[in-house]
Every structure is written in structure tokens, then in C-alpha cells.
């Protein structure tokens, strides 16, 4: 068996053996293996793609949420501002109203007091007049009890008339 002369037996068995090995391995090893590898690779690729999509969706959702939150915050601020304004206005109005009513009340009270004062004064005047009349009557009754006095009074009146 020489080093560089190929032996016919070895070529024969090598050819048969290798072709047999090739057949068996292709059919039972490489085809299922390559198929499994491809399947796994596509699975991984799909998973990665899906993860990417999910991540994008998450980002979108987050952005949307933030937008909504910002809007809600703005809304809240607006509402609060409006409420503040409304309450301020109401307080202001109430104050004005109260002031107006107070003034009115004071005015009314003043008028009543005036009226009462006038009535009281009139009463007092009437009383004085009545008392004066009574006193006068009593005086007259006493002074004109005799004829002489009556005559004197008439004289006096006549005197006055003359002067006029």
C-alpha cells in the first residue's frame, strides 16, 4: 500500500460509506436540524419584532397618558380658577348687598326715628296746648267769676281795639 497510490478497496468503501452517511445524515439529522434552526430563528425574530411593537405601543400609551394627564391638570386648574373667581364674585356681591341693605336699614331707622320724633313732638305740643287750655280755662273761670273783672277785661279788649 503506497503513500500516494490510492487503494481501490479504500476508494470503494469510502464512496459507499460516505454516500450512505450522507444519505442517512441528510435525511435524519441535517434536514430536521436545519428546519428546527430555521423555525427557532424565525420564532426569535418574530418575538423580537413583537417586543418592538409592544414597546412602541407602550411608548404611545405612555405619551397618550401623559397628554391626558396634562389635559386633566389644565382642566382642573381652569375649574379651580373659575370656582375661585365665582366665589370671589359671590363674596363681593354679598358684601355689596349687605352694605346696601345695612344702609337701607339705617335709612329706614332714621326715617322711623324722625317720624316718631315728630309724632312725639306733636304729642307734646298737643299736650301743652291741652294743658294750656285747661290752665287758661281754670284761670278764666276764676278771674271772670265776678262782673267787675269781666268788665275790666272787656275794657282792656276795647282798649286794644282802639289802638289798632
Amino acid at each position: 500500500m503506497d503513500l500516494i497510490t490510492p487503494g481501490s478497496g479504500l476508494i470503494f468503501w469510502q464512496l459507499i460509506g460516505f454516500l450512505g452517511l450522507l444519505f442517512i445524515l441528510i435525511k435524519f439529522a441535517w434536514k430536521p436540524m436545519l428546519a428546527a434552526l430555521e423555525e427557532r430563528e424565525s420564532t426569535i425574530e418574530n418575538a423580537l419584532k413583537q417586543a418592538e411593537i409592544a414597546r412602541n405601543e407602550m411608548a404611545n400609551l405612555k405619551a397618550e397618558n401623559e397628554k391626558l394627564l396634562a389635559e386633566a391638570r389644565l382642566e382642573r386648574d381652569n375649574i379651580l380658577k373659575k370656582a375661585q373667581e365665582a366665589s370671589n364674585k359671590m363674596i363681593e356681591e354679598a358684601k355689596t348687598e349687605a352694605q346696601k341693605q345695612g344702609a337701607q336699614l339705617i335709612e329706614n331707622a332714621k326715617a322711623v326715628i324722625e317720624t316718631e320724633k315728630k309724632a312725639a313732638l306733636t304729642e307734646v305740643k298737643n299736650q301743652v296746648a291741652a294743658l294750656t287750655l285747661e290752665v287758661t280755662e281754670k284761670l278764666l273761670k276764676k278771674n271772670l267769676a265776678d262782673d267787675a273783672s269781666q268788665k275790666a277785661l272787656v275794657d282792656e279788649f276795647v282798649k286794644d281795639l282802639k289802638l289798632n
Partner: protein
Amino acid sequence: MTRKILVLSILFSAFLLFNTNSSFAAGSEEDKTSFIMHHVKDSHEWHFATFGHTHVTLPLPVIVYSSDRGLEFFSSTDFQNHDTHAFGKEYAHEGYYIDEHDHLGRVDGASFIELSITKNVVMMFIVMFVLAYVALSAANHYKKNGAVAPKGAAALIEPIVIFVRDEIAEKSIGPKYKKFVPYLITLFLFIWFGNLLGLLPGAANLTGNIAVTMTLAVLTFIITNVNGNKDYWKHVFATPGVPIPMLLIIVPVEIIGLFTKPFALMVRLFVAITAGHVVILGFIALAFIFESYAIGVVSTVMVTFINIIELLVATIQAYVFTLFTAMYIGGAVAEHAHDEHH
């Protein structure tokens, strides 16, 4: 890891020394190195070790086909001296003999075809068995578990499969690579396993045998040319961009080129692996040529280093053979509209 390899290599080297030392009984220097050629060549028997006068060998079947006598089966022991286990013309059996160079001959000189199960054939079946076992267990993993992460044998084979598919086939062949991936994987693994198992002490030099590398190269040649497309053949017989008179020179060169490619494949693997074995055995032989323990220690260390390099060479050669096969196929199936000429 390195330490393990070192320890293993030293063990192997020691085993090899032990294995072969009987060949070095006093004799000429040629005798002391003859075991090297004996090892790297094929043989009709598998010799493992010799203890004194006891030869531990595996007798192998000798199968011969001749047109006049038909198919005949013998045992390698039929052609040996029963005591010395030596082959020789004087131990002819039924018209055949195996001479001292382990060469089968016919006494009457008539032609015949030898189909013996030689040492390398047995080695080849061992390699194929190991490869088939590993590959089928790997495939079984996917069958059982579906397309999940690899484990066990699948974890060993899968990276290689992916490497051959993506780095060798897809890059060198192009879009039509899928069809050739199974062949390339088988080729890579067969050569790789053959190279590695061939490094074991007592193993046969399978991938360093020219018949084996020739068969593989011829398969590559057939696959390349069967799949050759119009562009490929046009390139050979009517090279584009070459003036007609020049074709007289170019076409024969191109045709020779078809054959030099597989020839290069054949020679490259054969030489690389055989040379590695010869270097390792040469270092071992040094100890016996100089008959010195000191040289023995040095050569053992050297053998260890060469063994580590051989592990690398085993992988590189498997890769190179597969890569060139892929490139040749790629050249044959490529669809290219090019103006440049080679």
C-alpha cells in the same frame, strides 16, 4: 483545559512510544524510522501493540474480485507467518500474497480488484459511526424538544451547523446555498472527526490517506460540475472578453482548471494530515535514533506541542476543504453579468 490537553498528549505520546518500541530493536536507522511510513500508510491488519513476541493485532478481511475467479474472501492472517506476523511473498495463500510493503499481489500476475476492509476502512466506519451517533442524537434533541436551545450533542453540533451554513455556505455560494448545506456539513464533520480521531494513538491515518481525500474531492468535483450553470460553462468554453485566437490557449487552461481544483483539495488535506503524523512520529523516532533518554524527554515535549498544533490543523483543514468546496460550488452556480476575464 490546556493542562488537560497537555496531560492527555503526554499520555498519548507515552502510549505511542510504548506501542512502537518493539520496532526499534537494534537495527539500521532506516529500520528505526520505518514505523513512520508503516503508520501513515494503509494496512491489511490493525496492529495495536507488541509485548515481547506477542502481537496485539486486529486481523482484517481481505476481499478480492477478479474476472476469472469472482469475489473471494480471506483473512489477513492467511497471508502471514504465524509466529512473526510478518507478511511476505513466501506466505502466499490461494494464489494471492501480501508482500513486505503490505501490498496485495497475485502470484500468477493476472489482474484483480482489491476491495479489502483495510485498517483505514475500519477507521472510516468508526468515524462514520461516531459522527452518525453524534449527529443523530443532536437531531433527536430537536425532534423531542422542538426548536429550543441546544443541549448535549446538539450543543456541540449546532454551532458547527450554523457556522457552515452562515459563514461557509451562504457567504461562498450565494442565494442558492441552501441545497448544498447538508453536503457541506457532512463533509466538514467527516473530515474534522477523521482528523481528530486520527490523532489518537493507534488510530489509522484516515484523512491523510490519498484514496479518502480523492474520493471526497471527486464528490466535490461531481457536485460542482453537475450544478454548473450556463455562465459557468460559458466561462470555460467561451471565456467572455477573450479574443477568438486566444481561446485556443484559454479553453484548455480552463478545462485543466476544472480538474486542478479537486486535485488541490485532494493533495492539501492528504499532505497536511500526513505531514502532521510524520512530524509527530519523527520526533518520537529521534529518541530511538539517538538512543538517549534526554532526547526522549525533549521529543515527548515536542510531540505534545505538535499534537496541540495538530488539533488546530485538524479543524483548519476541515474548514479549508469545506470552504473551497463551497467556493467552487459558488463559482458554478453564481449568476453573474461580468465583463472582467480571468
